[in-house]
């Protein structure tokens, strides 16, 4: 078995593990390093021994391609983020709105776009470092409402089976810009073939279907709309 080393944005890590557990790729062992996309990007630029990079956005993979660290041909859009408004406590504890930081997270940009258009002004944002943290702000009760990823809510439900994680309002995808999650193969990888197998695995329809189950949308489901 060949081991490939995948750098994955932390909000996708559990998802990737679930996918691989359910249907392992023959002949390939996947080693996962999770961190924020920004950290992973810096590490790759400075010689990290990763074979594949699955980012939570599209800016960083494309920057890697432009700077010559990743191959253009390997670029895939493996998932699209899906947002929901989540307010687990009916009676508002405060007027804080938790979203991911829009300065560097596409989830955050999309959340802010939606909230600015739909929430009553002025909006008291609190910014999570990533979409998971925005979720935690609400979950811990410190913010009464949040714009969070559906995938996070589903993951939380899977972990605890608590019904509160299912009582969210899905936001129609037309009301925010696309949250494109792209992946690339790192040029310096010596296991290009295996890496390509992983990319293929992510894009086959069974995987993509499962992603939809786990709270993402996919290029196909998008197109089909």
């Amino acid at each position: 078995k060949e081991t490939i080393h995948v750098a994955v944005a932390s909000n996708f890590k559990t998802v990737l593990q679930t996918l691989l557990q359910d249907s392992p790729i023959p002949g390939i062992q996947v080693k996962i390093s999770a961190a924020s996309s920004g950290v992973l990007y810096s590490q790759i630029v400075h010689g990290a021994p990763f074979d594949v990079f699955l980012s939570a956005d599209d800016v960083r993979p494309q920057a890697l391609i432009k700077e010559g660290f990743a191959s253009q041909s390997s670029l895939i859009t493996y998932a699209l983020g899906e947002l929901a408004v989540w307010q687990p406590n009916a009676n508002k504890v405060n007027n804080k709105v938790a979203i991911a930081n829009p300065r560097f997270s596409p989830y955050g940009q999309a959340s802010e776009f939606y909230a600015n258009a739909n929430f009553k002004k002025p909006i008291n944002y609190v910014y999570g470092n990533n979409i998971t943290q925005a979720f935690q702000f609400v979950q811990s009760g410190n913010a009464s409402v949040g714009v969070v990823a559906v995938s996070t809510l589903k993951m939380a439900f899977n972990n605890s089976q608590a019904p509160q994680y299912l009582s969210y309002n899905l936001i129609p995808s037309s009301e925010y810009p696309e949250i494109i999650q792209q992946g690339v193969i790192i040029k310096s990888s010596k296991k290009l073939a295996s890496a390509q197998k992983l990319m293929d695995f992510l894009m086959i329809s069974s995987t993509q279907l499962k992603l939809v189950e786990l709270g993402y949308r996919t290029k196909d489901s998008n197109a089909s709309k």
Partner: protein
Amino acid sequence: MLQSDLTALWLTVKLAFITAVLLLVFCIPVAYKLAGYKGKFKPFLEALIAMPLVLPPTLLGFYLLVLFSPTHAFGQFWFWLTGTQLAFSFQGVVIGSLFYSLPFVMQPLVAGFKQINHTYNEAAIALGLSHFKRFFYLILPLLKPSIGSAFALGFAHTLGEFGLVLMIGGNIQGETQVVSIALYDHVESLNYAAAHQLSLILLAISFACLVLLFKFNKSIVGVKQ
């Protein structure tokens, strides 16, 4: 330099200063008691004080987030007391920093108290100086190098605090967006030039603060001892 960076700088210095001063006020009497205590629980107490060091700041922040939540008894108590919420507020960050930097202030003080030559204290007791006078006018002056060291560690450590503020701060400009968070934002948004600039300024300012501190510290004790 960005206006927001300036705000962050000011906020950071304020936070570090308040934290270090509050910690000194709290730690000096506790360290004094602890250094004098000879019971069998001594090593346990000393280890207990070092505990906040051991938990990674992010995790410490996570637990504090839970503690601060309006759904938690402490959060409720605080709200009842002050009418404000701790999470995402400057006060909350101060409280977090107090936990976080406690060991760095406590340890040098305990070690310092232990090293003060007992004969000075005994001479002062025999002179008929009350406990109070001895503490303030003899022991504290003799302890100055350690107090300086404790303040410097507490101050500098709070300047560089990141994981904890990230967790409980919510990245709110002027309230909880300290320099370390601003820096992280720059790095995450691949805005390295801004990051370099800000970190240089941070280094320069803290260097200046510490030089002044050590100079001051020296001029009081160094010459005479």
